[in-house]
């Protein structure tokens, strides 16, 4: 089947016009537009000190670990648990010391705070903080944690934490003397408490057995966040079989000390199983932020590498071909050599011995890519253009060789350059992703590759954390497919035999 041979399109403007007329061109351009829009919008929508905070564990403490996106609820067919943060009263401010009986305001949170001073059996101050919250999800929370700030004099106070359930079978979770003073919080990680004696797990087990005659046989791991929220009964210690008890829970904290002024504040987090739009990773980080900020990094690296390398290769290839002689030979052989070089291993070698910075690697990449396959393409086009009549005309009116090159030949190469840039951006995006995946990218910035790499080392695939894998992978694929489609439609316009007409 012979195709008619249309007139080749040459000028950049007309090429672009043709590209926009193809369907793949439109799709490619609009995908690219979405990405660019994202890059421009991200700093305003998700303002975030990425380099400073992404790697900082403290920033993410209130997020659940390995949480699925919130909208996965639609497929789960049940209500999943959202994180509830019972915020402290004096969130950033100092804790007021009190010794007068009466209620105290709680500007930061919803706690009810009461102070009692009694002299019946000696001079004592009690501060009670009580907070009610609803738990209506169909699944258990993933973790529980409590932080208590205490301010006290020389005598150690006593901290009592009580757990009140909707079924009114209550339990005293903790009775300890807090050892840290304000501003250092006392952390009570209720879910992960592993102190050998009198652990919360043991306490909860005994409570469940006494009150509900729960079955503790064949139960190897008691999860406090399950049993505390479970319906009373035989199965409440077994996290696979326990059923959620919905309703209003109350957390009560009481601090007591003899005859000195006292201050207390508390924060509790009931960690959920879902979080945000894109879920979280094992370091509790909000993946949405990492994904959004991964776009500028990927695009910047891919675009800079592609533009610089393709332009360098085109210009060097054209120059060498135009001036010919041993220049041509040198560029050709250098291109052949650099193409066979094991570039990725060399980049890894550099990253491992010197510094894992993607911008250094970008420089190295350019250093090894100043000639290459694009110079060969440029060469073949220059050889073709050289023979055309208008070049002969230019020669005949006495234009210098340099003038002809820059005025008449390089502009002809421009559309091809665009196509080649579009076609080579994906490989550079993936190069960056590969390096980040191996942990040799920029350690401070979140990139799609590094998120995927952490998902791999965190065994996300075997643990079924699909959001941690699919979203960054989708981001990379989306960006690269955009450029691939663009490059393809350029190719179609520039190589008219392949045109669909």
């Amino acid at each position: 089947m012979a195709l008619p041979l249309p007139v080749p399109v040459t000028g950049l403007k007309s090429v672009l016009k043709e590209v926009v007329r193809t369907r793949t061109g439109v799709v490619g351009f609009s995908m690219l537009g979405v990405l660019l829009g994202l890059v421009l919008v991200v700093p305003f929508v998700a303002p975030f000190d990425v380099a400073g905070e992404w790697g900082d564990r403290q920033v993410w403490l209130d997020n659940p670990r390995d949480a699925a996106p919130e909208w996965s609820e639609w497929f789960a067919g049940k209500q999943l648990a959202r994180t509830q943060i019972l915020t402290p009263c004096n969130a950033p401010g100092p804790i007021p010391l009190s010794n007068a009986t009466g209620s105290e305001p709680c500007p930061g949170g919803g706690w009810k705070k009461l102070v009692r001073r009694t002299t019946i059996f000696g001079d004592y101050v009690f501060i009670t903080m009580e907070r009610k919250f609803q738990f209506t999800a169909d699944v258990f929370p993933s973790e529980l944690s409590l932080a208590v700030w205490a301010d006290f004099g020389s005598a150690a106070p006593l901290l009592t934490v009580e757990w009140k359930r909707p079924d009114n079978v209550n339990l005293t979770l903790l009775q300890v003397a807090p050892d840290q003073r304000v501003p250092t919080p006392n952390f009570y990680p209720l879910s992960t408490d592993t102190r050998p004696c009198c652990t919360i797990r043991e306490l909860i087990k005994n409570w469940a057995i006494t009150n509900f005659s729960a079955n503790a046989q064949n139960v190897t791991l008691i999860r406090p966040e399950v049993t505390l929220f479970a319906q009373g009964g035989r199965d409440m210690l077994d996290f696979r079989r326990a059923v959620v008890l919905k309703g209003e829970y109350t957390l009560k904290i009481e601090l007591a000390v003899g005859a000195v002024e006292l201050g207390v504040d508390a924060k509790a987090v009931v960690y959920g199983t879902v979080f945000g739009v894109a879920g979280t990773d094992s370091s509790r980080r909000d993946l949405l932020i990492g994904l959004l900020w991964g776009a500028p990094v990927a695009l910047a690296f891919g675009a800079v590498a592609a533009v610089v390398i393709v332009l360098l290769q085109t210009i060097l290839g054209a120059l060498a071909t135009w001036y010919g002689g041993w220049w041509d030979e040198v560029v050709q052989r250098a291109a052949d050599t650099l193409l066979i070089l094991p570039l990725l291993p060399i980049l890894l070698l550099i990253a491992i011995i010197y510094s894992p910075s993607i911008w250094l690697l970008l420089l190295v990449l350019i250093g090894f890519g100043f000639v290459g396959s694009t110079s060969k393409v440029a060469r073949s086009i220059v050889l073709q253009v050289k023979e055309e009549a208008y070049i002969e005309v230019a020669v005949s009116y006495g234009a210098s060789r340099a003038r002809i090159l820059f005025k008449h030949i390089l502009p002809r190469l421009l559309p091809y350059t665009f196509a080649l840039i579009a076609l080579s951006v994906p490989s550079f995006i993936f190069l960056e992703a590969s390096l980040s995946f191996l942990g040799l990218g920029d350690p401070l910035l979140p990139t799609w590759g590094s998120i995927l790499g952490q998902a791999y080392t965190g065994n996300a695939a075997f643990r079924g954390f699909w959001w941690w894998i699919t979203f960054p992978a989708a981001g990379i694929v989306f960006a690269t497919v955009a450029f691939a489609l663009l490059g393809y439609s350029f190719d179609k316009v520039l190589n008219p035999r392949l045109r669909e007409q």
Partner: protein
Amino acid sequence: MGFLRYLTKKGIFLIVTLVFALYLTVVIANFGGYVDEILRAQARFDAIRSCNQDLACSQLDPASKNATIEGNYKSFVEARGLNQDFVSKSFRFTWDLMNFRLGRALELRDVEGGDQVSSIIFERLPRTIILFTSSSLIAAGMGIWLGLRMARRALSAFDRGLTVVSITTTVVPPWVFGILFILLFAFLFPIFPAGGMVSVPAKTDPLEYTLDMIYHMTLPAIALILSAFGSWSYTTRNLVLQILDEDYIYAARARGLPEKTILRRYVLRSASPPTVTSLALTVIASWQGAIITETVFAWPGLGRLFFEAIGSLDAPVVIGLTAIYAYLLVLTVFILDLVYGLLDPRVKALRRG
């Protein structure tokens, strides 16, 4: 004779490239005296160990024992030329790399516990070659076959759809498919193993062992094929369409030859040499991509070794692997050149002449 000359010319160029790549590896690795330091530390360790193993030496008093160790160490450093200037040293190291004298690993060990980098690498090499050669061949066969189909039904819905599929799957590297496949076919629908080369414990029967390996190879191979077939099919399609436009095809049609014969005898024959050259780069990229693909599938080949070496900062292994990759790429290009020479009628003509 002409064919031999063609091959010799290509071979000489590739050997020069190989030496350049190895030299570059040495220069990069030893830029801050890194290799020197490793070698010195190993030499000192050797000197101390050989003294402790030697009855006479180990019973000397500490001062003369140290003097003996120091003397042995110094003589080794001189013998290996570690005290020479950078340029002559770099040539020596390059010569070592060319002869697979890759030194000793810092952390990694081969299956027998040995620490020779070359034995660690050569233990892994066949596994990588099995996986990548088989999937590259399948991808090439499948791609060429699809490309011919697409060209014959050019501009149909089949052609357009497959073209878009080809260009989009080509840009996605196999490890991205791999990590998604593991999620899908090893976790969600557990039909394939998530990684590894054989089951644990390994089968003893050779046939069962082979079948087990093929079973483990399926998922990585599909990922590799999916990411590689597109460039073959798209390139084949375009080349075939270009050739179908040539005058001699019209002539063949005019002679009334059946379409199948034209395709086989005229089109495929002239399309295959350029396909081979234009895809040399794809094959090279796939070798290098092995580093992550094998890591994702826990395939115990060279790429996985690279990942392990990075993880344990085992520089001698990384340097040795870079050298091996240089060898692999050069060899691949040489084989492709050979195939090209066999396919291209012009080179064939040289062979006859």
